[in-house]
């Protein structure tokens, strides 16, 4: 009800938010562990395949004759894609560089040049890594389809479902990208045709804008899911667990 005196009794209206250091600490721990895990894969693991399940860290397997460590062959692109992602940049600057660690918390470092110099100006290349990421995504979709084909027959295992979810999350992450939002329509100055109807670019921009609102969530969830997928497949490979077949 409206302004009855009762409804305005002062109560503590402010919801208590978490202490400021929680978010940057989470970032450092999560990205740090993920980084260590990745290094471990690069140097100590040469494969990520269990029958028709292929770990996203090792896709595509085809290297067209280029000789590098298998994990490096694929890993540079998603890593650079994520490192130049607008969302991760925010988390990284806050968590690792304390620039700033949280809003209105004083910074100790005096020297600052933002994204105007190497290496941080490489962030401007984000769209190029996006193009590469889309190519990788194609392979991941192929892998996901493969995951439903057991010795030439259609089937569904827990692994198939995990891989499907994984690639879907990566797709959501990739297509909610700020650079994509710009390229698909945000870059144009006018959104209407001369007859007053919306342009196609506008419709796409509008759609991507709604996905973009959750980009940060997709960023974390997709990262953790990639990790989980690899762990799942690695456990299968080592015989620690067995895949559940539904069909």
């Amino acid at each position, binding site marked *: 009800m409206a302004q009855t005196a009762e409804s305005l009794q002062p109560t503590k209206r402010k919801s208590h938010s978490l202490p400021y250091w929680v978010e940057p600490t989470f970032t450092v721990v999560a990205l740090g562990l993920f980084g260590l895990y990745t290094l471990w894969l690069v140097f100590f693991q040469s494969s990520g395949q269990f029958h028709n399940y292929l770990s996203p860290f090792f896709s595509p397997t085809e290297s067209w004759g280029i000789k590098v460590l298998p994990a490096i062959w694929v890993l540079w692109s998603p890593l650079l894609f994520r490192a130049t992602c607008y969302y991760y*940049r*925010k988390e990284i600057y806050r968590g690792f560089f304390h620039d700033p660690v949280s*809003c209105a918390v004083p910074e100790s470092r005096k020297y600052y040049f933002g994204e105007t110099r190497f290496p941080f100006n490489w962030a*401007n290349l984000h769209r190029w890594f996006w193009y590469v990421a889309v190519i990788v995504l194609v392979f991941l979709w192929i892998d996901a389809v493969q995951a439903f084909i057991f010795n030439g027959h259609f089937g569904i295992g827990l692994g198939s479902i995990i891989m499907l979810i994984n690639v879907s999350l990566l797709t959501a992450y990739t297509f909610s990208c700020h650079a994509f939002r710009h390229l698909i329509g945000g870059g144009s100055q006018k959104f209407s045709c001369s007859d007053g109807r*919306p342009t196609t670019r506008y419709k796409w921009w509008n759609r991507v804008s709604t996905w973009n609102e959750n980009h940060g969530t997709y960023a974390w969830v997709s990262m953790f899911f990639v990790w989980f997928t690899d762990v799942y497949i690695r456990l299968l490979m080592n015989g620690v667990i067995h895949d559940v077949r539904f069909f």
Partner: protein
Amino acid sequence: MPDEITLSVYRGDKSGGQEVEFKVPMQTGMVVLDALHFIQAHDAPDLAVRWNCKAAHCGSCSAEINGSPKLLCKTRVDDYVGEVIHVRPMHSFPVIKDLVTDVSWNYEKLRQVPAFQPAIKAPFTLQQRDVDRIQEFRNCIECFLCQNICHVLRDHDAKDRYWGPRLMIRIAELEMHPLDTGDRLELLKGAAGVGMCNITKCCTVVCPQGIDITDNGIIPLKERVADVYWDPLGGLVRKLHK
């Protein structure tokens, strides 16, 4: 419910100052500005504070309340029940007196933005969807809270290298106007310094108008700069397209 609240208000000028405590009788629905007015009328008639509208329309009453940048007229006292309310002037601008700071730098920069250059004479034919984006930016009340919180200005005092989020959305509203023919990208990359922003989003958090400064303003501007300076291929495609 307490019948009295305690405010600790910064008193001072260029040469320095400190917080002074005042007791103010609590009233239902009171905002911090009401409490400061009470102090002016009863305890400290010369307490300096800017305000105009008392309804979050004009952007005069920016200050920092318990460490976070806020509009005094929009911040309810009952958000701080049981706490002392510390009111201080904006950190990033020189103090004139008490809560009043010298924000003239912002106006200097606003003057340096090349104005709207329409392609045709009014009346314009524009759809609502064409102007939605710019209307969001034009909702700015020039409170400069975003300028105050932006760490580039606040901690690094890089006013010579970055014009700050308010200026970014001013440029964005012009660059995204369907009928504007101006080109401010060189300025943006150079003197205005969009590259200094590291998209850490504090400006967006404090904006009392809820403008999505980073996602809708600065990032699209960074992408526009990338279009021209980091994407020869895209540039070529656009040229052919024309």
